[in-house]
């Protein structure tokens, strides 16, 4: 029993040392991808290309599902939540299209 624990602990340490630590920046950012991607691409699909909402919902689907997508047509702000992280994108104008908001900007979105 103790030997098995030692083996597990050893494996975990090895995993952290060889995989997790060198990739810590990538791993920390990974959960943000799906929410940010979905918010940005939905915003552009809907408000830059002018495609229908139901089309854009399917268009942004990736193999990691999102938990929530909220579109606020009045302000053209799209918020998406996935893997526990929430991100927003907003339409800025006819030439600028949409932009993914920084975390602090997104926090200000009602």
């Amino acid at each position: 029993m103790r030997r098995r624990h030692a083996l597990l602990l050893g494996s975990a340490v090895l995993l952290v040392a060889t995989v997790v630590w060198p990739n810590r920046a990538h791993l920390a950012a990974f959960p943000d991808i799906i929410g940010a991607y979905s918010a940005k691409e939905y915003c552009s699909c809907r408000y830059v290309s002018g495609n229908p909402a139901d089309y854009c919902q399917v268009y942004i689907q990736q193999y990691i599902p999102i938990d929530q997508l909220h579109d606020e047509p009045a302000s053209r702000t799209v918020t998406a939540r996935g893997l526990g992280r929430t991100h927003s994108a907003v339409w800025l104008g006819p030439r600028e299209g949409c932009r993914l908001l920084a975390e602090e900007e997104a926090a200000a979105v009602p």
Partner: protein
Amino acid sequence: MSAIGFSVRFLVAGLAAAVLAAGRAVAEDWPGAGWARQPVARGPALEAFEAYAFPPRDEVGRRGVRSDAVVVIRDGVLVYEHYAAPTTANTPHLVWSVSKSLLACLLGVAYGEGRFRLDDPALQYYLPLAGHPDLRMRHLLNWTSGLAWEEDYEYSPLKSSVIAMLYTRGHNDMARFVARHQADTGPGTRFSYSSGDSVLLAAALKGMLPAERYADYPWRALFEPLGITSAVWERDATGTFIGASYAYLSARDLARVGLLMLRDGRWGERRLLPADWVAFNRSPVPGYQPRGEGLVPGGHWWLNLPLARASRPWPDAPADTFAALGHWGQALYVLPAEKLVIVRFADDRDLSYRHNDFLHLARAAFVSGEAR
């Protein structure tokens, strides 16, 4: 020879040149607010082309060829267009990495205005590159920066530099995110396709223009002269154009850029891109070693040239064919030998689509006898 004889000869030569230029202007078709149209007659070749480009669309599994739009221009005249809902003739469609070649056109205008030279250090226009003093503009344009960059998309997102740049660690200031990457190898020694290199070019363009002119530059320098009205170009939080990825145009408008390139950088009587700039765009990356059936990179455009020990990437298209290509099947093909420009927008989510098959069928439909 007398002075009078000389000036008469000069006058005759000038007149001849004027007549030739006038003849050229009369003979050439250019789009005004819209394209002149001469739809190609329907026949078996067009049926075969449509069967390939627009098969019944798989909306559930998203498998197979899924074209959103095709526009074909032959010698300045629109001969074919077709759209798949919800994309229409007026939809500004995301062009993904075709944006890189549009950025190259913008830089071509700036180059013609004498704003930079190919051998200038990129650092001269973008100070955060201070750690990369040997990196020159031509290296960024050839995707040979040597920066340690991972160009992966949705199937390998963890270590993808592009995804980090667009969506997570880099999105607020994309160029700065790229500039912070270490060099893997010296600039100019290794081709490695990189959206980071393109974003650095967009930042360098900012550095070579007066601050108040950057935001309007794509319109003033390129879109307005070409009569393009549908363009959208998204920016990061610092206002830098996302030159690698996020331009949107209608298919008809993107075809105008194709016609500009087909005619060697000239738009009507106006030369927008210097001839040597277009020649640079269409020259293979120096020292590039062909890899299997991969495309041949040029100066922010893709080429169909046969290189040492490799046949051309698209055997069924002429060797002088070149293209701007983007994720999920976006393409702007230019076939100078056949005066053909083809725009294809798509939402291809697998690898079914083949450039060579598409071009083979397009040539049969639009060049071999049916069009004109």
